[in-house]
């Protein structure tokens, strides 16, 4: 497959010659005039890092994640003799475009013609490719540097190869002492890398990448310090938005391969009846009717689990058949008597009422700044509101599905998973096999949104294949997906402020009460953990002298998991709704109120502002990605101005604002709402996004458009509720999605432009949190009706 890859790797270890012995590599030389003084002669072979063609390397959180970030171009790039450049996509593609955008960065930096680039999907192998856990809006944020580095490395290697090919005299290429100031250098390039070819600057001859492939892949891999990077002005694809997603044609012709499209010889299909209540088990079942369905071959019990069990399957009864139709019909024909287990009394209505009471009492203090008790004691007035959110299921269009073939001491898995190496580890453990004996192939994901970070469905397939000795596909139905998810938490967020005589906010108290994701992984403390706390709670950016952020107890009675944007959804919902309510209460303009709350231009100082010791800045070094209030205010102003904030609107229309930083990206939403026959319609949404350097503006826009739709869906419709421990909803009839008859018809994305030096961040999640509060604020401005509970429905009552 990667024709030169294996070969290159074989020779790789032997080819790392000492820098001074490397021939011809240097593409620049320095005038002797540059060598003044007597510095220590630390050699950097000619690769002058001038400010215009370099970037300052900065640390990213990916380096601290399991297996870190790999920058070896021989792992990620190969070139065929015909010039085809093959680039490995090591992140899972679930719709954000990272499978295209990361290779695009590499291709641009190396000089490859995109039309001659082939992308291959990495199997789950983090020791080889580095961290592959595709979530947290991290792909571009963590990998744009490594992609540029590998692209520049290959370009460098191609230059060396060309010099060798033409047998260029590199003897006058002078090594450059580190102390030589760049502006004293006179570069004389021997060769130049053009698009997919290299030119001999002396003769004008050119040679294609393919003809240099073998030589180039034998060239030593340069160190970062030796690399010359493209000037931003030279980018052909990065920052341009002119590259379509790699799978575009296959998607439109139906040939793109998703999880369920994998068909193996002799493969059986399984559908599973899982316990309606987490931790429940079948006490008796009758499979007579199931076995009577033509095509049904076996009925097998699966071992169950209860919380905390990470991603272990729920257990239940599996019906194995020759085709999917028979498997599902057989499963539906099972008669099962379930024992509910310890969570059979989980009822959403009562639970939310309990959380409301908890939120009124003091909770665990997470952030304490100033003197909150003093602020409230001396307040002229206080103002408090509660905001709630129901559980949500991800409901990606492709329900969970996986194919496994376990035989002869090896397991091979094909599945749409966000974390292929995590899947490999979990399956190895479940099967009692070594990780080395498990292989995980990643298909396209028909949506992920966090659900496909949890590989329970792939474990099910592996267990059933191991048990039956045949390849097995496990197909979840939509009902399975809605009823057996790892749900977005449910929450009550209570915010209370102290105001002085002049209406200035002197104290801010926010109590967040929600069952925690941590309960899926370990004993339930009843409290949220640092990652959840860092998502819009303790990092609240308002300039208020006295702040206390608290966390009241709530136990988990279902599997809580992360859903796109995670805890930022309820926090932005609460904080941004509250800011608008406060403005109304004080008779203030909402934008002015928000700007005043955010306060002066500054970066927050977590230590001085009483943030917790374990403050989580999305895994990033704070100084590299600080909370910058100027950027926050800027996106707010951009969105508000674009939407015509302050202009007169017809009766029944309103604009609502919200701004939120999440995943180190800043997004503001100005939503225009129109009430038609009592129904909430959202004809126009302005999204202003500041994600640092914008690597692929076209996919940034598509993510913002999609976020507006998902945000509207969760605002209006997404409520998973439990009765006696079981999920009430089942399919798109009672767990509704926004459709073409009522969706944000005109989403306009405004991308704040930055040079590469403003670190790129991700956009998969940050667009979602501000949508619901912006819509609710707009509904209030249109009608005077305040909405505080998600989901609030499509139709305004009363």
């Amino acid at each position, binding site marked *: 497959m990667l024709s030169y890859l294996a070969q290159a790797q074989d020779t790789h270890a032997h080819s790392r010659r000492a820098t001074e012995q490397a021939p011809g590599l240097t593409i620049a030389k320095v005038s002797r005039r540059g060598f003044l003084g007597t510095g220590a002669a630390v050699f950097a072979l000619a690769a002058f890092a001038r400010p215009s063609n370099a970037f300052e390397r900065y640390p990213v959180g990916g380096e601290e994640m399991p297996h870190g970030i790999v920058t070896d171009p021989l792992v990620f790039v190969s070139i065929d003799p015909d010039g085809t450049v093959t680039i490995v996509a090591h992140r899972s*593609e679930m*719709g*954000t*475009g990272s499978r295209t955008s990361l290779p695009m960065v590499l291709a641009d930096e190396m000089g490859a013609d995109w039309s001659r680039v082939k992308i291959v999907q990495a199997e789950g192998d983090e020791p080889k490719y580095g961290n592959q856990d595709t979530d947290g809006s991290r792909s571009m944020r963590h990998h744009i540097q490594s992609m540029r580095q590998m692209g520049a490395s290959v370009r460098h290697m191609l230059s060396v190869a060309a010099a060798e090919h033409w047998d260029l005299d590199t003897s006058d290429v002078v090594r450059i002492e580190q102390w030589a100031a760049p502006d004293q250098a006179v570069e004389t390039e021997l060769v130049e890398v053009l698009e997919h070819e290299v030119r001999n600057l002396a003769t004008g001859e050119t040679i294609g990448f393919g003809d240099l492939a073998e030589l180039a892949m034998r060239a030593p891999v340069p160190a970062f310090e030796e690399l010359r990077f493209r000037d931003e002005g030279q980018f052909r694809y990065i920052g341009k938005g002119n590259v*379509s*997603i790699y*799978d*575009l*044609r296959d*998607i*439109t*012709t*139906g*040939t793109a391969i*998703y999880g*369920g*499209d994998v*068909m193996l010889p002799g493969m059986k*299909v399984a559908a599973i009846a899982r316990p309606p209540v987490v931790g429940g088990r079948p006490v008796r079942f009758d499979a007579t009717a199931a076995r009577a369905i*033509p*095509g049904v071959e076996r009925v097998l019990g699966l071992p169950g689990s209860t919380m905390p069990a990470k991603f272990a399957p729920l257990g239940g009864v599996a019906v194995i058949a020759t*085709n*999917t*139709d028979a498997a*599902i019909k057989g499963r539906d024909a099972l008669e099962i008597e379930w024992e509910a287990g310890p969570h059979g009394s989980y009822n959403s209505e009562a639970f939310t009422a309990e959380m409301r009471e908890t939120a009124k009492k003091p909770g665990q203090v997470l952030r304490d700044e100033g003197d909150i008790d003093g602020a409230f004691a001396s307040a002229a007035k206080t103002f408090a509101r509660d905001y709630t959110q129901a559980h949500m299921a991800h*409901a*990606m*269009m*492709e*329900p969970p599905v996986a194919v496994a073939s376990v035989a002869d001491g090896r397991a091979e898995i094909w599945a749409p998973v966000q974390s292929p190496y995590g899947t490999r580890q979990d399956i190895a453990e479940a099967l009692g096999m070594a990780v080395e004996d498990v292989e995980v192939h990643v298909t*396209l*994901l*028909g*949506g*992920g949104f966090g659900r496909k970070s949890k590989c329970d469905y792939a474990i099910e397939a592996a267990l059933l294949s191991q048990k039956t000795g045949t390849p097995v596909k496990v197909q979840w*139905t*939509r*009902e399975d997906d809605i009823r057996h998810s790892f749900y977005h938490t449910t929450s009550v967020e209570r915010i209370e402020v102290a105001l002085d005589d002049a209406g200035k906010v002197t104290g801010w108290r926010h109590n967040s009460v929600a069952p925690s994701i941590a309960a899926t992984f370990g004993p339930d403390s009843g409290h949220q953990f640092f990652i959840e706390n860092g998502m819009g709670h303790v990092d609240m950016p308002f300039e208020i002298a006295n702040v206390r952020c608290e966390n009241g107890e709530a136990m988990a009675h279902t599997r809580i998991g992360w859903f796109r944007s995670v805890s930022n959804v309820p926090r932005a919902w609460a904080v941004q709704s509250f800011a608008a309510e406060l403005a109304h209460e004080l008779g203030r303009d909402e934008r002015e109120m928000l700007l005043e709350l955010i306060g002066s231009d500054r970066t927050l100082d977590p230590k001085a502002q009483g943030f917790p010791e374990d403050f989580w800045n999305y895994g990033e070094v704070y100084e590299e990605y600080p909370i910058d209030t100027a950027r926050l205010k800027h996106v707010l102003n951009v969105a508000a101005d674009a939407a015509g904030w302050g202009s007169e609107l017809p009766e029944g229309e309103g604009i609502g604002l919200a701004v939120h930083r999440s995943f180190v990206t800043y997004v503001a939403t100005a939503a225009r709402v129109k009430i038609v026959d009592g129904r909430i319609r959202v004809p126009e949404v302005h999204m202003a996004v500041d994600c640092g350097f914008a690597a692929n503006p076209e996919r940034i826009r*598509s*993510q913002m*458009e*999609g*976020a*507006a*739709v*998902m945000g509207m*869906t969760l605002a209006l419709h997404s409520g998973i509720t439990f009765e006696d421990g079981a999920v009430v909803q089942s*399919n*798109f*009839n009672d767990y509704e*999605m*926004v*459709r*073409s*008859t009522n*969706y*944000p*018809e*005109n*989403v306009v994305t405004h991308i704040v432009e930055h040079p590469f030096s403003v670190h790129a961040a991700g956009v998969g999640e940050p667009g979602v949190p501000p949508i619901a509060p912006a819509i609710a604020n707009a509904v209030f401005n249109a009608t005077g009706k305040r909405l505080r509970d998600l989901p609030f429905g499509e139709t305004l009552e009363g």
Partner: protein
Amino acid sequence: MATLTINGQEREIDAPGDMWLLWALRDLEGLTGTKYGCGAGLCGACTVHIDGTAVRSCITTLDDVAGRAVTTIEGLSPDGEHPLQVAWREMNVPQCGFCQVGQIMQAASLLAENPKPSDAEILDAMSGNICRCGCYQRITAAVRSAATGA
């Protein structure tokens, strides 16, 4: 045993008459372009044409289509250049892409019946097709573009 035409070819499918067409196409005929999304006719991911009209193959049985002509995405255009497929690519419509085949098949049925639909007609015709990634704005633009050439 059901006899029907699939993408212009007569096929005999050895399966129970109550098998859902979706699974017959995918599992027995290997036509995996048609997707499973809900199994209840609620999302449109499984949309195919029967005698030229869009139907949900997840709630259509083999008996229902005996003697009729089924067209899937694989048979929509021999070279993948149906005006809708072209428009989809020009507008960079998909995100995850999973629902797009159903969307295209639904739109193709609309344009076959009504070559110049109004925006309201487009939105109405597409209302049975869910896109969880939220590509509706571009889907609408692509259908409009394929219909008008604009």
